[in-house]
Every structure is written in structure tokens, then in C-alpha cells.
């Protein structure tokens, strides 16, 4: 599974309230609607800047805060291909895997806004085409690869009738 796209860079501690504000998340289950407000408190016009397949690149502790699954879902439905960060908050990371949003953990210091990246999820290798550099990400544990390969936990359950990890 290989992804390619443009970089949108954010800082550290991007919390779930920034990803999707509580004032929207309680109103609807329509993820396409929620997606329009993704990152709104950090960048008012962010949704309109996204081209399908683009990456959100953060620093440390991406997705900290609430357990709202609307956070990874809003990102996914905004057509972001993957989130790449130095580290993720635990619940966000779980939720992303469970909902089928790829998350990649690696050093992001040398990735800048506008860089074109090519990400190989299986090997964890990231090619920064703009800078002609390769970054090696932490490989995902088997359990998570199994869930991602099934397309998330819901399809995993549909397929196996329960956990089959």
C-alpha cells in the first residue's frame, strides 16, 4: 500500500478539540459534514486546502485529548491519506487503526509544508521527493497490520465474527 501526496504541517500536541471541535461532533454522525471543519481552530480554511491523498504531518503527541473517533474519521473523510507524526496520543492512534486511517510514526523535523512524500505503509519507508531524502518509520505491530489490512476493526469483525488477531 503506497501513498503519495502533499504535506500540511502542524505543530506538537495537536489535540482532538483542534482536529474537530466538540461543538460539531455532538451534532451529527455525518462525517462528510464534520470533515469540513477539520483543524478549523488552527487554520480556518484548512478543509479547502486539501487535495485528496495529502498528508497531515505533525510533531509529538498528535491527537491528544478526547477519545472522539470523530477526530480520525474527520481527517479520513477530508481525504487525507495518512497522518505522519513523531508520536501519537494513545487513543487517537488506536482509533485511527480501528477506523482504517493510516498513521505513521517517524521523525518529522525535516518535513516541511509543501513537501511531496511517498509513503510505503508496509515497509515504513518514507521518501521525501522534494528533498530527495528517505526517512524510516517505526514498523507497525502485526496486530495492527492485520486490522488495517481488513480495512479497520468493523470489517475485521464482519469477516471473522470477532477478534482474530
Amino acid at each position, binding site marked *: 500500500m503506497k501513498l503519495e501526496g502533499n504535506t500540511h504541517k502542524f505543530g506538537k500536541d495537536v489535540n482532538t478539540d483542534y482536529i474537530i471541535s466538540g461543538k460539531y461532533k455532538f451534532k451529527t454522525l455525518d462525517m462528510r459534514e464534520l470533515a469540513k471543519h477539520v483543524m478549523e481552530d488552527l487554520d480556518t480554511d484548512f478543509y479547502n486546502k486539501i487535495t485528496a491523498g495529502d498528508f497531515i504531518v505533525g510533531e509529538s503527541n498528535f491527537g491528544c485529548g478526547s477519545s472522539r473517533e470523530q477526530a480520525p474519521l474527520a481527517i479520513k473523510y477530508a481525504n487525507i491519506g495518512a497522518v505522519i507524526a513523531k508520536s501519537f*496520543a494513545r487513543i487517537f492512534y488506536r482509533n485511527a487503526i480501528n477506523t482504517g486511517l493510516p498513521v505513521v510514526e517517524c521523525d518529522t523535523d525535516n518535513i516541511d509544508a509543501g513537501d511531496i512524500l511517498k509513503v510505503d505503509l508496509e515497509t515504513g519507508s518514507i521518501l521525501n521527493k522534494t528533498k530527495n531524502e528517505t526517512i524510516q518509520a517505526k514498523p507497525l505491530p502485526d496486530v495492527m497490520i492485520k486490522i488495517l489490512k481488513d480495512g479497520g476493526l468493523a470489517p475485521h469483525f464482519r469477516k471473522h465474527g470477532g477478534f482474530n488477531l
Partner: protein
Amino acid sequence: MGLTIIEKILSEHSGKQVKAGDIVVAGLDFIMGQDGTSPLAIKAFEEMNGEAVFDKDKIALVIDHSSPSPNDGVSALHKMMRDFVKSKGVHLYDIGEGVCHQVVPESGKVGPGSLVIGADSHTCTYGALNAFSTGVGSTDLAGGLISGQMWFKVPETLKFVCNGQLQAGVYSKDLILYLIGNITADGATYMAAEYTGEAISNISMDARFTISNMAIEMGAKAGLMEADEKTFNWLKQFTSESFEKVEADTDASYYNIKEYDVSSLEPQVAMPHTVDNVSPVSQVSGTPVNQAVLGTCTNGRLEDLRIAASILKGRKVNPDVRFIVAPASKNIYLQAMQEGTLQELIEAGAAVVTPGCGPCVGTHNGVPSNGENVISTANRNFKGRMGNSSAYIHLASPATVAASALVGKITDPREFIK
């Protein structure tokens, strides 16, 4: 090599001995979902082809985040939850029952050694009962509802040894804010926090819940404490079931052990817009306050209301401050009413709202205006948290919130405590 509390609980629930780093599928003792997360979980439940829940007596859904409903969108989601519990025979705590993290402990179904998931990040609160409870998302919740299981990565443990005695006017909230400021918002990511030491054993269960509640604010998966007489006496109010305490082995291996002496700690305030942006109150006092909030799953318990009332009794809050009080549960509301605490707060100027999350997460009950300062007993001060990204949220203890409401500025509560 010995085991930590969390390694023991996960070994017990997965049927094999596990160590930090292992990934296991473990059986669950209790599952909770609230109105911000359950509707998506119900959707995921259906996508998983779920029919029955694994055990209806081990599940509770709670309507607390936008409760009662402020608009038709939320009403539709609440209805979805009500329909779901009816068809599955699951218990629902509907509007007015309280915050999920108070009503679950009060159900008596969680105690020492329990393994609990809740689709809310502050599910780590029940660690104060010597349980491993952790926040998950809606899809994990749905998987749990169907299978009674979840996959876990066994975390390493970061141990906080808190020695000494908190001074008068300094509370468990000040201690946990201090610890978060000290180790930062991601200082314990993926880890379990274990809190121990005489400063923990000396405080009440109400005060302990505050500390476990905020473990997530340093990124931790759990905020565990040992069980003692106070734990068991507290549980006795709500259940006759017996639990066995889980203790760490003396030779357990920790990621790190941090020691603190709390004796000279002063009241702390988390300044906007991150929880780890913590200052001693003396450095930030004088900041004007427009709204003061007493409540939430962090500090809406009886002891918290009493502390605030002891400062506000016979006085009036500053006319420029809106003072909002949300008791954490109906049970607490009733007790506070019967003993007169609530009356003292109302006479001082409190607007009391429905037991539940109150204005904590910005869905209703007191959204601040642009540029306003809020001081709150909640656990999060992120930009936009209370529904307005141009407001400034400060976090503090019930005493500091009460004193600040009184003066109209951030104030050291020790001025009002003899």
C-alpha cells in the same frame, strides 16, 4: 521479576502471564459509552453485524455530555441510544443522572482488579479504585459490546511516589496539576501511571478520583492506585460484592519512579491553552475572571462542593462573574441539597445546572464569549474546549475557583481558609 498492578490485571484477564510490551486480547468486566461516543459505536456495532451484546449487566450507556439535549441534532443521537438500550436490555443513565465517570463508580460494578473500557478519555478515573480502566473510541466500544473483549498493548508503568502532607488550602487537584506540569502533556504516553505514597493514602476517595481522572492529561493509559480501607469503605456504599486488591510486587519493574514531596506545594493553575502550562497561583493571581465553573468528572463530587461552599458561605460572588455549578451525579446533588451545601452555593450566586458534564465540553450550559477568562475545575483548557476558541480557560481546584469567583480575579484560596 515481579509484576506491576497493570501487568497483574491484564494477566488475570487474558489467562496468561503478560509483561509490558506484550499485545493481548483480554476479557472485560465493564463497558461504558457516553452520548458523544455511543452513537458512532452503535453505527459500528451494526457495521460489525452485531446482534446481541455479550452481557447486558456489564454495560452502561450514559447521556451526560449534552444533557438535556440542546438541539434537534443531539436529540436524534440521544434517541438512537435510547432505542439501542431498549432493544439490547442495557442500562441507560439518562439526563440528570450525572457524569459517566461518577455514575459508573457509583454503580458498584467496578472495583479493585476490574478491567474496564469506556468510550471517553477520562475513563482512567476508576484507577482510583485499583481498577485498570481506560478510554477507547467508538469502534473499540462496539467490538467490546459484541465480544466482551478488547486488544491491549500491556503498558510500562511510571510510578509517582508522593510523600509528605498537603497543606490547608492545597488539594489533590493542585497535586495532579503540578505533576502534569512537571512531566508534561505527553510525559506518560502509552504508559500506566501508578500513584502511591502517604500523600495519596492520606486523602479521601473523592480527592483520589481527581488524580486518576487526569492521568490522560499526561498521555497515560491508566492512573492506578492501590486499594486500602478507604477504597473498600467507599465501595461498600454502593455494592456488597467483594473485590480483591491488586498490589504491585516489590520487585516489579518500572519505566521510571518519580519521587515528590508535596508538603510545600502551593495551589496551582493551568493557564491557557494546555493542561501542562501550570503556574503556582501566586504567579498568576489578579487575572480577571468572567466565568467560574465548579463541577465535571474531575471536581464535581461532594467534597468539592463542600470545599467551595466553605469559602462562599455567607458571601456573594463578584457581580461580574457567572458562577456555574454542575454536581457530578444526582446522588451528589441530593446529598449536597440535604446537607445545605447547595443552598450555600446558590445563595452565594451559583447557577446550578443538571448533573452531567455541564459547560465542560462546550455543547451547552455556559459557552464563554470572545476574549473572556474562565476558571474551571475541569481537566482540559484547550482552545475552543468550552465552545469558543477565543476564550481563555484556566484550570484549578474547587477552592481556587470559589475564591476567584468571589474576588472576580484569580485568587489564592488560602486567603479564605483559616
